[in-house]
């Protein structure tokens, strides 16, 4: 653990709440980037990050210090984001009927020549966001961590608190769910 982190944490645990602010300043960019993977609206993202920091402050005594503070914080962040997804699962988008023009264009280009369709276009990014928004919370979390962030099953188990077999089962289901939605997207647009 970084020496300054340890000092700040010790000071907070002794009752100096102000020592928590440097930790917020240091790690908020990483926490915001994580929260933005699971929520779209900036107000929701700020609420999630604020909740993460509140939990971190209240649970700081449970931080044992045998791993970096950042790892402990990211576990907390991922679990809070998962709770957010579960709490908002009724608001999930359910159709691909309202694709924007650039999204439709991108799909048509992909259908015409899959190899040449660019990866880095905003339309492709919007499409994957739309697709992710349709997944169940567990599937979305697994696809995000496993496919997009390329984390191992062991790392996902550590982040989520799930067992390794459970991560594998959820990964299998998540891939099947994603394939089903992709098939629906293809059917809606091209059949």
């Amino acid at each position, binding site marked *: 653990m970084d020496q300054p982190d340890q000092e700040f944490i010790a000071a907070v645990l002794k009752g100096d709440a102000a020592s*928590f602010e440097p930790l*917020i*300043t240091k790690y908020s960019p990483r926490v915001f980037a994580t929260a933005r993977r699971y929520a779209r609206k900036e107000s929701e993202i700020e609420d999630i990050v*604020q909740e993460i920091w509140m939990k971190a402050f209240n649970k700081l005594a449970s931080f044992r210090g045998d791993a970096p503070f950042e790892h402990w914080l990211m576990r907390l962040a991922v679990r809070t984001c998962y709770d957010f997804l579960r709490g908002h699962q009724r608001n999930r988008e359910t159709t691909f009927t309202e694709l924007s023009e650039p999204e439709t264009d991108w799909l048509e280009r992909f259908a015409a020549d*899959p190899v040449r369709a660019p990866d880095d276009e905003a339309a*492709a*990014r919007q*499409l994957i966001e739309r697709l992710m928004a349709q997944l169940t919370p567990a599937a979305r979390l697994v696809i995000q961590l496993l*496919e997009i962030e390329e984390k191992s099953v062991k790392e996902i188990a550590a982040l989520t608190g799930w067992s390794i077999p459970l991560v594998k089962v959820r990964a299998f289901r998540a891939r099947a769910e994603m394939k089903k939605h992709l098939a629906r997207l293809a059917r809606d647009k091209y059949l």
Partner: protein
Amino acid sequence: MELEHLKQKLVAAARANPPSDRVPYGFERRVMAHLTEASGTDGWLLWSRALWRAAIPCVLIVIFSGLWSAGNSKAETGDLSQQIENAVLSDLNHNLASVW
């Protein structure tokens, strides 16, 4: 359309565009203000929890003392009536005894 290829393309698009790590201006101070507020209300929370915890033994004490006093008053009611009866009739008993 090749679904697996489409999936790979979209996942690659997501990897190529990681989300921003921008932190809103003054966010740290806002969180600190919430933490201070929360720790202020925590005192009240602890106090109310302590009161709620104290309420259970208080209710039990009230019930037990109520039962105990009810039991006692029953016993005492018997004695008292006897005592009153004795007190009222003692003179009469004494008079009757002297008459007979």
